[in-house]
């Protein structure tokens, strides 16, 4: 559905994207994560047809997206910093969206308006940040896109609204098979909704997996070794910490493999614990010099 191949983009000598490849299957909810400055927003702007690639290609729904209104009409985009026409109210913006998105659904718009309880006539610039985000969701979903691109979508929303928004998204995906690409730092929430994850760092895609594969590929083990025993060499330990005799190991490998090796080491005790997406992010990027540093003030 979304295919980015060997994408490179340079701004004034700074390489923001470096030979990046990304694939979002149809109907997937893809979480794009990475530290600040990784290039997530830059990728998103290529996918929404704002930027022209220096090298590589970006195709959405099988066609190049740049300068392609027919494809863009099937994509809805909510940026992290939303723009509305100055002095425009929600009603005016809806009329504008209805004019440029052929699939805009007035009925859906009315339903969502009721659900979000937003004032249609008030100027959008007078809305709070959270209400502006709600308005953006309302307009984007009413446009009935096949692809939804979201950059920090729930930033600024209260917990109730966040749940409502995610619920809407999931419903849309389930009913219409919408493909969603979400960029966010809130990995806890992404974990609940995404089925695909891509981790970016310094303009490159570090890894791209389904969530299940990702969580399967890195394992957290708590181990108590016998006196004189060492951690088996064949394990690819990403991180190690100790609390008394209990060693906590973050190991790259499948659960079965780690289980087999640890069992063979005959420890006093060991247990395999699933990792959160946040832990996967931290420890994966730790291998590329982006680890958490203890800051002492």
């Amino acid at each position: 559905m979304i295919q980015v191949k060997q994408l490179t983009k340079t701004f004034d000598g700074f390489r923001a994207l470096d030979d990046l490849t990304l694939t979002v299957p149809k109907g997937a909810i893809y979480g794009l994560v990475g530290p600040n400055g990784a290039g997530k927003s830059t990728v998103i702007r290529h996918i929404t047809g704002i930027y022209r690639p220096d090298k590589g290609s970006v195709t959405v729904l099988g066609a190049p997206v740049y300068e392609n209104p027919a494809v863009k009409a099937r994509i809805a985009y909510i940026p992290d910093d939303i723009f509305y026409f100055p002095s425009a109210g929600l009603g005016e913006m809806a009329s504008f969206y209805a004019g440029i998105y052929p699939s805009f659904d007035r009925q859906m718009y009315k339903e969502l308006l009721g659900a979000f309880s937003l004032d249609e006539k008030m100027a959008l610039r007078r809305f709070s940040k959270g209400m502006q985000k709600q308005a953006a969701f309302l307009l984007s979903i009413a446009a009935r896109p096949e692809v939804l691109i979201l950059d920090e979508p729930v930033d600024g929303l209260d917990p109730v609204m966040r749940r409502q928004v995610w619920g809407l998204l999931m419903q849309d995906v389930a009913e219409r098979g919408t493909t969603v690409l979400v960029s966010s730092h809130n990995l806890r929430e992404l974990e609940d909704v995404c089925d695909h994850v891509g981790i970016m760092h310094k303009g490159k895609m570090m890894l791209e997996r389904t969530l299940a594969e990702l969580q399967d590929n890195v394992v957290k083990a708590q181990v108590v070794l016998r006196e004189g025993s060492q951690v088996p060499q064949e394990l690819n330990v990403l991180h190690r910490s100790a609390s008394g005799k209990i060693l906590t190991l973050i190991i790259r490998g499948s659960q079965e493999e780690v289980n087999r090796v640890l069992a063979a080491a005959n420890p006093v005790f060991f247990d395999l614990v699933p990792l959160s997406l946040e832990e996967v992010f931290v420890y994966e990027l730790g291998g590329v010099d982006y680890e958490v540093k203890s800051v002492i003030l």
Partner: protein
Amino acid sequence: MKSRASFCDSTLLKKDITRFAPLWALYTAFWMLAAFFTVQDLGGVGLEYRPSQAERLIKVLGTLGTVSSAIYAVMVAAMLLRYLHNARSAYMMHAFPLNRSTQFITHVIAGMLFFLVPQLLFTGALIIGLQLRSISLAATLGLTLLGKQCLAWICFFGLAVFCMLLTGRTIIGVLSYGAIQFIGYVLPRMVCMLLSELFLGFAYRESVLGELSPFLALVIQQSLPRLLIWAGIGVVALVAAWLHYRVRHLERAGDAMVHTWAKVAFQVLFTVTAGLGLSFILWLLFSGEPVARYPFVFLLFGAISFFLSWFGARMMLQRTIRVFDRKNWTGWALCVAALAVFVLGLRYDVLGSQRHVPNPATITEARLTVSNYYSFSEHSIDHLPETPDLLIRDQDELEQLAQANGTFLTEAMNARSTQAPESGEPTAQIAISYRLSSGLTQTRIYEIPKSSDLGRTIAALCRKPEYAAAYYEARWPGDAEEGAFSWYVTPPASAQTEEDMENYYDESTDIYYDTPDVVRFGSFRLALVRQALIEDAKAGALPISNALTWDDKDLGELSVYPSEYNNLLQVNVPESATHTVAVLSGK
């Protein structure tokens, strides 16, 4: 899945029209008022209506239209395109399913409508109003005005759109537009001022400078060829803007200039224009002497001025005051070095062009203007009359003139080098144009001492009867209506007191006595004066009148005025011009 090409989006167009309704509504109101007052003004004329009034009306409304178009165009372009100057709006607008060409063309169409609708309403109201006043030229007047306004608008709007696309900030776009309107005049003008100070004999066409500024060119005159040229430039600007828009890097929103070449152009033009301007201001405040006498002092002022303008431009481009790095100091130093090369190269005539006098064998004719009443103060060739005072084709005379010219230049350059004080002796301004066999022309304007070789050579030529007679025949105004002679020679016998002489008219001689020192003539007397001047010139008693031939013994100054004061003749009358003296005395 490529989209079908569409050049205009109706949703976006409607949005532009409704969003900016206050702007074009205000413009419409302005022109409706203009129509009202125009009809009111012409209505007072009554049913009789002269074509000259139509011309005057077209000129006045045309000027008003030009000025208002120039201002309105940049406002419209700024409103329509400022979304490109903010990253948020630029990204969002280009995420919508509208390709860049469609967006650009839609905004341009909106801009055209913002102008055209008010103008059509104005034209309609004007034509109807004038026809109700029974003014027969109403439709022609209205449509002529509309056509001219449209052409002026295309020029200004095209340039404004181009400036908005070239820059990343709206205020810089507006300033760039303002600069484009005048820099074609201001910068060459300042360079000409500097050349006038440093290049001995420098002469240039001032009128050309006005043509380089769209605003000045169209305000001064709205002839059809001029409007068509500038409208064409506006179209080119629009096309360039469109081509740029298609490949514009949106991340440049917020940068002063979007392209590197535009940054360089802005840097250089701002530095040179502001730097030269400030240099002259400092020079006038703290010196006021000719620059050629103290070029190094001028360069010092130049270095200071260029420092301010160079780093000022860097601050505007980089949006920071931290611009004093080595690279920028090097840039400033190069600018100052370039100024030094220019100033000193001219001052010391490194290329030898100031001292150059054409080889007499290559000169086909020399045209001299020596009359005192032409102002050469701006070194402008435009002030010279079409017909020269002296037209020399004789080879011997050309050789003599060229040799004297060369001697004068050598002396003048030496005097400049030694910084010799000015002698205080009388001088005259002369313009010499050598036409060469190659078809080229060399024109110089000098201020020459009367006693110089060149001054004496020209004075001798002015005394030649054939030249003097031809001069007076050519110079006498064809529609002379008035003449006056100052320092009247002989009072009339009947006047005994000053009171007697004031406002006294002698019917027999057709002479008016304004004051004891001034007499005026009626048309009959003027005809006699003309005849007398030519007779005296042919007899060799009256040279071409100018500062080189004036004498302390001259009796006074004769002035002859045509009806429009654009062909004034002034003659210092010597005693030897007996016919002229007699006619002036009423004999």
